């Protein structure tokens, strides 16, 4: 047995259910990759990209806003608060959402909702980053590789 069964669900539907050989998830402390046979793990997710690679090397990317991941040696369950396929995100709309969120965060600076606005901005930015990285629709200059 050298693959996982992976289920990705959000509160509204099941996003993905199938086999994979590698899952990369955005944990609170950074990205983590899981290979089949991994020890059981229970973790909180932050906003970012979730990637699933199957046996033929095809990769699918998802955006998750947060949630939980449960890893069992041959089974992974991802409970996303909000989640969608990278391919389903409209890049232009995502970019506009980031601007909106940035504007709101600025308005809320120093007010009670500031933390909330900041969190929303972080989620919107992460969502845009996911679509830019894994499913770009608008030609743009690739950001310089950090290496």
């Amino acid at each position, binding site marked *: 047995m050298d693959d996982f069964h992976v*289920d990705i*669900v*959000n*509160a*509204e*539907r*099941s996003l993905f259910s199938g086999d994979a050989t590698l899952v990369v998830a955005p*944990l*609170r*402390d950074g990205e*983590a990759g899981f290979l089949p046979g991994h*020890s*059981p*793990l*229970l*973790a*909180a997710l932050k906003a970012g990209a979730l990637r699933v690679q199957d046996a033929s090397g095809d990769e699918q990317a998802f955006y998750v806003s947060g949630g*939980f991941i*449960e890893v*069992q040696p041959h089974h992974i*369950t991802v*409970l996303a608060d909000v989640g969608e396929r990278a391919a389903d995100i409209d890049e232009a709309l995502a970019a506009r959402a980031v601007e909106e969120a940035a504007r709101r965060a600025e308005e809320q600076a120093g007010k009670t909702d500031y933390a909330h606005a900041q969190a929303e901005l972080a989620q919107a930015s992460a969502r845009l980053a996911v679509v830019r990285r894994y499913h770009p629709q608008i030609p743009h200059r690739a950001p310089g590789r950090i290496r």
Partner: protein
Amino acid sequence: MARGKEIRTKIRSVQSTQKITRAMQTVAAAKMRKAQERMRAARPYVESLVGIMRHIRAAHPEYRHPLLAVRPVRRATLLVVTSDRGLAGALNVNVLRAAVGLLKEWEGAGIQGDVAVLGNKGAAYFRRLEAPVVAQLAPLGDHPSLQSIAGVVKVVVDAYRKERVDRIVLVYNRFENTMSQVAVTEDLLPLPEPGPDVDRHRWDYLYEPEAQDVLSDILARYLETRVRGAVIENLASEQSARMVAMRAATDNAGRLIGDLKLAYNKARQAAITQEIAEIVGGASAV
């Protein structure tokens, strides 16, 4: 023609009743479609979460979370989900019968039981019964939000946390299909028993970031989602049951109208025949 007139009035009254039941059937059918969609959408999340909870139950966490405690049951709470309105066939009757049956069973086993209710029907029922109700939410509304349910969930779960109850059971109508809804009782806490698929050896999760944080978050999420899932199922069941009940009522009204019309025509025919017989009798007498 006194008898004929009476029947005509009756026919009109049944016809107007039929109009009402048919309208209710249409409304329920429309609401049912939406409610079923919402339920189908919510199911995978709830099922995945329950699966994870089974695994957590099987694990041996180093950190003992108060909600993971399994104690001998001396006191228990029944969380009953009912609908706000009636005219939905045996829907609420089934749930309440299951609830009362369980309460009696507990009483027999020496377990002190109390009740938390969601929905008007259950609230009214347990008030009449003078059962110990610890929390209630009524009316529930057509689109119960997570926040509105959270209040009742908190009361019940806090009692578990503080070791005032040792078991919480959820009773609601599970939606099988449009024609059939089944009253089910499911354990909310302690966590559901692990299935045969999990490792029976001593093992624990790795937690990221901290065991306490992750477990608290995911347990809170589980409890709210599970209860909300039950409410959503119950709503879908309610609308389906109402549609079926109202369709039966409309059909019955139609049959009744048919019978009454037959009776009316017979009475009319009898009156005419009698009149002719009288005329003929009168003519021959002359």
